[in-house]
């Protein structure tokens, strides 16, 4: 593929987000009854985007030389004076791979959503938001400009807000949407500061430009400029940008929104957790990677790595003690994002991004699978009330199993390769972080095994026909009618399981391309570093150990009743409760940050009431007094008085004259005759 053709394709990158955007625009005008049209439009638009993304992806492949093929298309958005704001589109391996993933996974999530949302009243609204969500994410991916990226970044945040709170009449959903929005906004402040500083230092927000003055191309120069906190400008900007990624990709300490995002419909969870929202943060770090690596040997990269590492372990421990099927997956997402961030922090773009891609496929698979389970069990989310679903939902079971094995890092599956890369890169950088990450991998295998056994093994524990609807979230709008299918779980319809099957294929096969992906991104790797065998061996070993332990605790004797105590709870005691309550982070934030903010709020309110309002009121009262004075003296007396009296006299005159116009013809005639008589008399006697 020669460069001119690539350039041509880069100019057409805007078409990729355009299709879902147009679909969303049309759907926002559709009446609520147009379900088929809405879903069809959405899926077709996504399919079109996917085809375009694949076309762009294929064009970036097939280069023999190691130089990265990169084409971009910049244009001026608007101009005022000598300043002009640019926008740009980019086509390079990172973008192309990401766009294909987003469009492809998004497409299958949409297909699944047609089943999941089938009984919802606001079907068209849902698809409208989802389409916009996908469009903004694709826009984020193809942008060659930090401003455009930021706009799309915020749009992604907005859409996730709208979709998490899709069932806004549920108080939990309304709270979750606000939490997600506000928490990510905290990170966005950092991101915005980073953008401002980048513009300040480089004078451009374009990432790459034709004359090599793009923001990323100046990274080397920025590394020699002084920034803040004893860092170079490049590292300072990188740090600020990373704060944004911290919020978006749900890293500790801003991870709290992600598990609560489970309140949204399950396809949304899949979209947020796999293809769009959280991927945006990691992708952005990957996109801005030259800034992160510009100045070697500073603490920013270590910070990134340790945040990732800590999040990976921390979230994995929480996932062990959750009972909600989606919540386990949510913490698992946090944990996996930690792996990606850790890999980036360890200096490996390829490992982080590759794990992002494979994770997107198998996590979307797992989430859609959990959605199928939830529909199949009539909106049950508590794993204690499931069980034995292998018998009822075989297709979902096998696909879920593949996703689970991929997540656990069992050898031939995708997760093994990508996680292995991550661990290997971390191993080179820091042995301690590697150890912790390996422990997180062990926990991952353990909690996924626990989930598998609780959900699919044993016998069906919930849903006797008599209390089939006794569960908590009875108020979901798409609740099945009572007695619809009895209490028995059932396999879901084809449009729900087909995406699982497709994604399963990728969860199995994608891992084999890990080496190629590294070369594709233009990252030199290849030579086997020392410790590869150790890392790989330990990774497989802890995976197997986790699964084994999971089987020992949950598999040998499955739960009999929904009310039975978790076997882990018995052995871990208080620790289990702590884990179940997520290390009390929410409570900690409640008593520290939120309480502090509330106290500040009360104080500020008092200040506002007493001081600000006092001053304002004093000013207002004095003006009121002056104006009263003017009113009495000037206005009332002179102006109003003069005006009123002249009005009155005009009115009086009118009244008098109106009497002449009585309408009595004879009166007029009399006056006329009298006048004529007077004229005659004047004529005769003068």
């Amino acid at each position, binding site marked *: 593929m020669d460069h001119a053709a690539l350039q041509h394709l880069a100019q057409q990158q805007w078409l990729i987000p355009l299709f879902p955007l147009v679909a969303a625009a049309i759907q926002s005008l559709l009446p609520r009854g147009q379900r088929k049209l809405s879903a069809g439009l959405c899926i077709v638009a996504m399919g079109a985007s996917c085809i375009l993304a694949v076309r762009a992806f294929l064009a970036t492949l097939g280069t023999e030389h190691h130089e990265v093929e990169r084409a971009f298309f910049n244009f001026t958005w608007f101009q005022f004076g000598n300043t002009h704001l640019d926008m740009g589109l980019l086509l390079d391996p990172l973008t192309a791979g990401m766009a294909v993933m987003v469009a492809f996974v998004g497409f299958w999530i949409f297909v699944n959503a047609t089943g999941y949302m089938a009984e919802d009243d606001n079907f068209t609204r849902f698809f409208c938001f989802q389409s916009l969500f996908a469009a903004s994410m694709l826009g984020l991916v193809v942008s060659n400009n930090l401003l455009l990226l930021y706009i799309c970044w915020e749009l992604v945040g907005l859409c996730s807000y709208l979709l998490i709170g899709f069932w806004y009449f549920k108080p939990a959903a309304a709270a979750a949407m606000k939490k997600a929005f506000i928490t990510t906004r905290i990170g966005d402040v950092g991101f915005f500061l980073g953008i401002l500083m980048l513009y300040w230092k480089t004078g451009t927000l374009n990432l790459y430009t034709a004359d090599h003055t793009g923001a990323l191309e100046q990274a080397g120069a920025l590394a020699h400029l002084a920034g803040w906190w004893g860092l170079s400008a490049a590292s300072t900007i990188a740090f600020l940008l990373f704060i944004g990624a911290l919020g978006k990709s749900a890293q500790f300490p801003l991870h709290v929104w992600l598990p609560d995002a489970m309140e949204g419909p399950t396809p949304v969870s899949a979209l947020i957790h796999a293809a769009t929202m959280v991927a945006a943060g990691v992708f952005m770090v990957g996109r801005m990677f030259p800034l992160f690596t510009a100045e070697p040997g500073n603490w920013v990269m270590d910070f990134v790595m340790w945040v990732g590492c800590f999040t990976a372990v921390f979230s994995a421990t929480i996932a062990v003690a959750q009972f909600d099927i989606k919540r386990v997956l949510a913490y698992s997402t946090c944990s996996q994002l930690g792996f990606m961030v850790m890999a980036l922090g360890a200096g490996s773009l390829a490992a982080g991004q590759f794990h992002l891609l494979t994770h997107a496929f198998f996590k979307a698979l797992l989430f859609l699978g959990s959605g199928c389970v939830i529909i199949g069990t009539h909106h049950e989310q508590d794993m204690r009330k499931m069980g034995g679903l292998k018998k009822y939902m075989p297709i979902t079971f096998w696909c879920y199993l593949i996703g689970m094995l991929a997540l656990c890092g069992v050898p031939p599956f995708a997760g093994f390769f990508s996680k292995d890369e991550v661990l290997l890169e971390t191993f080179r950088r820091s042995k301690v972080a590697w150890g912790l990450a390996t422990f997180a991998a062990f926990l991952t295998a353990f909690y996924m095994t626990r989930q598998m056994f609780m959900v699919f093994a044993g016998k069906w524990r919930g849903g006797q026909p008599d209390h089939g609807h006794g569960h908590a979230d009875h108020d979901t709008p798409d609740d099945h009618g009572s007695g619809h299918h009895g209490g028995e779980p059932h396999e879901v319809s084809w449009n729900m399981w087909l995406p699982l099957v497709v994604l399963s294929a990728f969860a199995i096969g994608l891992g084999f391309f890990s080496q190629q992906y590294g070369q594709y991104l233009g990252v030199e790797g290849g030579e086997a570093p020392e410790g590869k065998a150790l890392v790989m061996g330990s990774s497989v070993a802890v995976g197997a150990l986790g699964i084994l332990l999971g089987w020992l605790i949950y598999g040998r004797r499955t739960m009999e009743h929904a009310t039975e105590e978790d076997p882990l709870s018995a052995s871990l005691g208080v620790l289990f409760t702590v884990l179940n309550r997520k290390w009390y982070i929410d409570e900690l934030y409640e008593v520290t940050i939120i309480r502090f903010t509330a106290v500040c709020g009360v104080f500020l309110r008092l200040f506002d009431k007493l001081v600000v309002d006092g001053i304002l009121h004093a000013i207002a009262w004095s003006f009121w007094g002056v104006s009263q004075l003017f009113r009495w003296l000037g206005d009332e007396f002179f102006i109003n008085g003069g005006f009123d009296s002249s009005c009155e006299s005009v009115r009086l005159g009118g009244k008098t004259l109106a009497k002449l116009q*009585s*309408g*009595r*013809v*004879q009166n007029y*005639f*009399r006056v006329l*005759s009298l006048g004529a008589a007077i004229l005659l008399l004047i004529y005769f006697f003068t």
Partner: protein
Amino acid sequence: MNIPLDHYLMLSAFLFAIGLCGALSRKNAIIVLIGIEIMFNAGILNLIAFWHYKYFTSVTAQMFAIFAISIAAAESAIGLALVIAVYRHYKSVDVDEMASLKG
């Protein structure tokens, strides 16, 4: 028999005064119309009298008189039609009640 011009003029003025009184004082719209007609005819009589004593050779005044008579006829026809229309509306031909342009 020679009647001087003064007599004609006196008659004409008298007729005009009668007509004016009728038109100004009576309430019945038809009587008012009759009064107007009398005034009209007083004027025509005046015109003819002057013609007869001063411009006998010309026919212009005669023509004007005939025009004025025919116009007076048309005017009285319209006037009567209006009176009938007013009567249908108000059930009365009292001119004092016809003080409004509103239907």
